Structures are given as structure tokens and as C-alpha cells.
């Protein structure tokens, strides 16, 4: 039997193309309304997607110190949105991004346990650390934490959360009136965590989540991020534009899993992919031109400047990027560096680079017919470059409708995608085991993040 492809639906207000909200079919004035998201969630469930994914953003986009209004920005709180969508869906996973940098582990463990209970076992947590200095300014800090420190805090944060979820045994909730027993206290224990960043007594005031823990997701591509992923991640979202580096990334992760006694099948690596689908090549060409024409020149320049964190006011759209100055100015995220190298290799102008970035930031793009798309993803899968994709429609909902109506049936016919959900929980559908109690402590004892921590000690 062929291995099934994992599919995530990455929700973004308007669409993943920076100008997608301007497309004639996009309900641009409804991007903060429930109906927009309910429609997207139901479509994704009809297409048998494994999960809905929502990113996070803790600071408004700016240009020269003022709000920048040419891109959509209705960043609804991920957990609030997914709790609302839990009531209108039955099978699809609900993955919320939430930062370990400006939150409390007890409160977050409580939030995800609640979402998992409300959804009958469909919650997932994309664990991120917040690197942006401008986000720090919204949380009474003057600058972001240093990277390794963020990950060390993140590791302890996840340790506390998993311990809290495990603080109730699986059958601790009894509701046995005859025995005057609401819960079996012999199965409930405090966690008594005393650590570098947190002191948390526990237990949680909720039964263990339906899935034991929500599915743990991770998305960082730096050396620290990869180490963290090998320790905690069951799903990895990653920005990969080419098969070879994607396969290398996947192999690297798989090698690191061994340290923790984890197997490759315990993990799904899902690169972001933005498909622009048309019924013929001529239509695809027309759609691409249509989208590019919607990219306002000011947004185009901002797009490049924002990704590389480098002011480009002195440059024109038809000039080349000042590659070396950009690299010297600031250490970039791994995914941004890949885009910069690609632009340099292809000798793109700033305007051309902007068109690339506007499609899907640092993620993969595809433009073609449904058949071509199927061939594309089959190739990635058979080459061992990924376990599936996090789909990023360039504009909602019409490109998503095309995907669900035209691409999904082809994938099902080829037995690459399921025809029905396998189970009720997200773990069931991804084929992941329910974690045993205190499983995370066992993983930690095998040295989670130790290389990164040694690196920090060496630098000090």
C-alpha cells in the first residue's frame, strides 16, 4: 500500500499571495468574520485534509514606523478561531500556533487541553518562539530574547505543559455518584516542577486531553530549531522550495530522531506549498499574470525589504539587490537566506524577487493543471523529500475550491490521499500513537537540545 500523503490547510486571511485579497473572488471585507473561516474549514474537511493550520503574529506590519496597509492584517487569535471552528467540523485537526516566549505554561496547557476536549481530540500546537524585536515591544520588553535562550525556555515550557497534561491518569475522571467519587485522586498528582524559568505545582484542573497531548508541531529551520524538532515535533512545517535540500532536511531530522528512540513514521514533515491551479496551461498563465498585476509596486518593494529586514528606499524595482550588504546587516532566518541565495543565483531584479516572495514568502510554489500538480507532489513523495504538504492557496476561497474539487479526486483515485478519515482524533488520522504518561521526561533524559546548549556555553 502506498504511503498516504498528509495534507494541511494553512489558513491566511485573503490568501497566501500578498495581493490575493485583491482577487475578484476574495471576500476582502469579511476577513475578520466567522463565515469566511467556516467556509474554509468545511471545504478542507470535504477535501479530507488532515488539519487546519493557523499562524501567529504578535506585531503589526509597518513601513517607516507607520502601519503598512497594503497587505491584509486581520490576525485573529488562533485558539479563539479554532475553538469556533471545532463546533462546525468533525474530523479535521485544529493546529494553533502559540508562542512560548510571552505566555505562561499553566495557562497554555489549560488552553490546549480545553481545545482538545472541545474538539474530541483534534487539537495541535505549533510551538514557536518569538524572535521579532517589535513583538517584544508589545509585551513590556525592549528586545527579543536571544535565540538559544528562547529555545531553552521553549523546551522547559513544553516539559511543563506535557507534565500538566499527564498530571491526570487516563481514567482519573470517574463521575461515580454511588461511590461519591468525582475523580480517582490516586491517579492525579502534582507535577512540582522547579526549573530555570518556571515553578509550577500542578496538577491541571482538567482530565488528560483526549489525545493524551495535542499533536506537537514545530516549524523552525535553524540548527537549534532542528534539534528542538527532533525532540518534540510530530509534525514539522518547513519552507522547502527544491527536492534535494528538502530530502537532505528530512534525512537530517530522521537521523536526529534516533537519539530519542523515535522512528521516521512517528513524524510527518510537511513543507508549505502554494498551488495555483488552472484547467489548462493557458489558464494557468493567465492566472499568474492576473495575480502579478495585482501586486502593487509599493507592496512589492516592501515585501522584499520586510523579508530581508533591509531598507530598500534607495533602490529601484529593476535594480539588483545589494546581496552582500543585506547579509552583513542582519542575521537572517534560514528560509530568508534561501530566498536571497536563489535571487542571487538567478540574477533577479528586485521586482522579480518580489514576485517570487509575494507568491508564498519563503515556501514552495506550484502553478499548473491538476494533473501536473499530482505529478509534482508524487515526485516529491517518491523522492523522499516530504510526508505531505501544508497547502497555501494563493487566494481564498476560490483557489481552495478548485483544489478540493479538481485536485483532491485525482489524488484519491491514485490512492495518494485518503477517501475517508481513518479515525476521530488528529492522532488517529496522522497514524501517531497516543503518548504514554511522562513520555516527554524520557525524551528529555536523552539529551534534548544539548548541542545547542553546549554551543551557548562555548560562546559565553
Amino acid at each position, binding site marked *: 500500500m502506498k504511503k498516504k500523503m498528509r495534507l494541511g490547510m494553512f489558513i491566511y486571511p485573503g490568501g497566501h499571495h500578498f495581493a490575493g485579497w485583491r482577487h475578484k473572488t476574495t471576500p476582502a471585507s469579511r476577513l475578520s468574520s466567522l463565515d469566511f473561516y467556516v467556509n474554509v474549514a468545511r471545504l478542507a474537511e470535504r477535501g479530507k485534509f488532515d488539519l487546519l493550520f493557523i499562524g501567529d503574529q504578535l*506585531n*503589526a506590519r509597518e513601513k517607516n514606523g507607520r502601519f503598512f496597509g497594503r497587505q491584509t492584517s486581520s490576525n485573529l487569535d488562533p485558539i479563539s478561531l479554532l475553538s*469556533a471552528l471545532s463546533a462546525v467540523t468533525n474530523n479535521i485537526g485544529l493546529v494553533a500556533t502559540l508562542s512560548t516566549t510571552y505566555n*505562561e505554561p499553566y495557562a497554555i496547557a*489549560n488552553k490546549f487541553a480545553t481545545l482538545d*476536549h472541545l474538539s474530541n481530540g483534534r487539537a495541535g500546537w505549533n510551538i514557536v518562539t518569538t524572535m521579532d524585536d517589535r513583538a517584544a515591544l508589545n509585551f513590556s520588553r525592549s528586545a527579543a530574547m536571544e535565540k538559544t535562550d528562547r529555545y531553552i525556555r521553549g523546551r522547559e515550557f513544553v516539559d511543563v505543559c506535557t507534565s500538566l497534561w499527564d498530571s491526570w491518569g487516563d481514567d482519573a475522571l470517574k463521575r461515580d455518584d454511588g461511590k*461519591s467519587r468525582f475523580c480517582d485522586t490516586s491517579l492525579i498528582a502534582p507535577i512540582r516542577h522547579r526549573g530555570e524559568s518556571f515553578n509550577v505545582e500542578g496538577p491541571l484542573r482538567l482530565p488528560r486531553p483526549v489525545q493524551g497531548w495535542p499533536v506537537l508541531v514545530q516549524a523552525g529551520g535553524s540548527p537549534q530549531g532542528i534539534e528542538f524538532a527532533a525532540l518534540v515535533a510530530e509534525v514539522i512545517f518547513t519552507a522547502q522550495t527544491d527536492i534535494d535540500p528538502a530530502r537532505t532536511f528530512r534525512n537530517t531530522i530522521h537521523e536526529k530522531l534516533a537519539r530519542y528512540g523515535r522512528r521516521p513514521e512517528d513524524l510527518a514533515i510537511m513543507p508549505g506549498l502554494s498551488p495555483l491551479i488552472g484547467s489548462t496551461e493557458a489558464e494557468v498563465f493567465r492566472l499568474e499574470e492576473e495575480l502579478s498585476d495585482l501586486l502593487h509596486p509599493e507592496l512589492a518593494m516592501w515585501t522584499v525589504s520586510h523579508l530581508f529586514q533591509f531598507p530598500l528606499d534607495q533602490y529601484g524595482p529593476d535594480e539588483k539587490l545589494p546581496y552582500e550588504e543585506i547579509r552583513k546587516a542582519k542575521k537572517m532566518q534560514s528560509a530568508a537566506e534561501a530566498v536571497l541565495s536563489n535571487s542571487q543565483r538567478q540574477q533577479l531584479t528586485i521586482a522579480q524577487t518580489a514576485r517570487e516572495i509575494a507568491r508564498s514568502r519563503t515556501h514552495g510554489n506550484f502553478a499548473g493543471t491538476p494533473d501536473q500538480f499530482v505529478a509534482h507532489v508524487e515526485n516529491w513523495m517518491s523522492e523522499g523529500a516530504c510526508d505531505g504538504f501544508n497547502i497555501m492557496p494563493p487566494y481564498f476561497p476560490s483557489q481552495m475550491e478548485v483544489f478540493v474539487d479538481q485536485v483532491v479526486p485525482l489524488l484519491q483515485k491514485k490512492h495518494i490521499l485518503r477517501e475517508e478519515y481513518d479515525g476521530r482524533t488528529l492522532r488517529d488520522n496522522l497514524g501517531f500513537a497516543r503518548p504514554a504518561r511522562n513520555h516527554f521526561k524520557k525524551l528529555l533524559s536523552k539529551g534534548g537540545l544539548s548541542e545547542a546548549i553546549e554551543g551557548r556555553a562555548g560562546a559565553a
Partner: protein
Amino acid sequence: MYITLSISGHGHHPAAWRKSTLPLNVGGIPRYDGVVRVAEAATLDAVIFTPPRFDKSLLANGITDVLQLDNLSVIGSLAAVTNSIGLGASSPIRYNEPFNIARSFSALDNLTAGRSCWLIDLEGHSWTPADFGHASNLSIDDHYCRAEEFLIVVRKLWDSWEDGAVLADKLNGMFADSGKIHPINYAGNFFSVRGPLVAVRPPQGHPPIFMDDMSSAGKRLAASYGDVLIAPCGDRAQAISLTNEMRAASKAASRGGAALKILMMLCPILAKDERSAKNRADDLDQSSDQDAVRSMPPRFVGTPAGLVSHMSEWVDAGACDGFNLAFPVLSEDVSVLVQDVVPKLKQAGLFRAEYPGSTMREHLGLRRPTSQFSKEVA
């Protein structure tokens, strides 16, 4: 009068889980969609989810339902399955950041099209300090000073996107009007927050702010910042005096004429006659941990008709603007409320028959605040 339904666990009595449970989810937590739709059919102003008042240490005795869901997620899960009723969540400010709270309520108010409200847990019922042992301890005075700053910041963040900031102008490629989106540049003793928020202004401007902290500092904050005060007065004379005091205080706080509404927290233990009601109360109490029973709100023990008289007498006497009803056993009592209590109040003209509008502010007759930044445009 105004009527809200207070929801905590299976009901406000610690024996509620033993008498009649709500439908349960797979993992054993109650499902609230059914009771909330019943409350909506009776045109109640809102349901307000609060954390259990039972101390977490009662977990150790195994007979008390101390489960605590994240109330923000619970009201989120009700957004798509209700249309008119207000959805309130108690949420603490202790151990939280104003940016997080402002964003969550902005999302919830947008997703409910203006039906969310925030009951501020000032006293800290939600959390046990030992679960936040790494956080700094504040003196009582500092706690309330921080709370006031927290509220100021949250309101500024809600205002940071003015009404009409979203243009969605496809022709000119302008999604939002940056002239209507403002950094707040707040710098106080406890918080420094630059802003703006990452989400559009709530449809209600600010979701209504409910408070229930009856300390003098709590009452001062309610007079200045609250829309509704939930008060637990067991005695009518005491309630009249409190209501007069708070109405005067909110007037003195020069908040633009929008008076604070006072709802009485009341636990009605009802049965078909007085004697059965008394027996029901005794039976519930005897099935419970006595510490938990002592933490319950003031009671009315009697018949539905008696409750109707009680409520109308209190409102007529100027003791309150309405009630936040905290029934002992939710699944049993909500049907009594909608069948035997609300219709009588409607017949007597004491409670409106229809929702007056679509937002919770409209239900409660509260004015929608304009953004404090809107003058800066000129």
C-alpha cells in the same frame, strides 16, 4: 430587567455533577451548546462562564467537580452555534499580558459579530499562585494598580484600529487605512506596550466589561471602567445601598454618562413548593464538601413564582438592574427557568420578549464607545 445565566461546571452547587449531568464530550467535559441554545430561545441577555469557586485543594477529596476549562475557548466554541445571545467569559489578568487578552477578545467579538463580553477575574479565582510560582508576587495595592494599567492598555489596543480602518479597497490595492491605525505607545509602571493591535477593532468597540470584585479597590475599578457589576448581596437593603453607591460612583467617575449596570448574583434553588425546595437544598448540601458549599453565591430557596416576585421586588425597589442567575444544577434548572420563570416575567412586562438588537451592548442598553484615537485624525 436584565438576566444573564452564570455557568460553572455542571452548576453552581458542588453536588451538581451527582444530580444530573449535561451531555458529555468524549473526554468527559460537559457540552454547553444545548443549554446555551435554550437560554437563547428564552432571549436571556447572556451566558457568563466563570471558573469554579471551589478551591483547587478540594481536588484532593475526590468528590468536588473542580474542572476548569479555558472560558475563552468555550465561548469561541459557541460562536457558530448561536445567533443572538451574549457570550461572556471570565478571564484573569493576573499572570497574563494585556496584548494577549485584547487580541483574544477582539477575535471573539469579531467571530460572534459583537456578542462577547469579558468578566474580569480580579480576585484570582481562575488561578492558583503555586502554578505560577516563578512570577513575582505583588502586594494587594500593586495588584490593583497593575489591574488598572492592564485595563487602560487593553482599551487602547481595542481602539488602536479606529472604526472604518479596514478599507478592503481592491481597486487601489489598499487593505487598511494606516491613518486610522495607531501605535498606543503606552508606558506605565507595570506595562510598556507599543501597539497597535494585530486585529481589527471589536464590532462593539469594546466588548462589555463585567466585574465582580467587591473589595473597595475592585469597586473603584468597576465605577471607572466597568459596564456591569455583578454583586452578591444576600439582603435587599444592602443591595439598595450598594446599587446607589455604585451608580453615584460611576457618575462621579465622569465616564460620559454611561451608568454602570448592577446585576445581583443569585443562586435560586427551586422546586414546586416551599417545602420541596427546602428539602432539595438540604439534599444538595448534604451530598457535598462543606467548604465548597460555603463558597456558593447567595440563595433564593422557593418556587418559580416566588422567584419571579423576588426578582421584580428587588428591581422595583432599586436594588439592582437585573440578575446573574447561578443555578445549582444547570441541566435541571435551565428548563425551569425558561418554562416557569422567564414567561412570567415577560407576561408581567418585566423582561423584554425579543432581542432589541444584535450585539450584547444593544441587549444591555450600553453605548458603543468611540475610539480614543479618532480625534487625532484631524
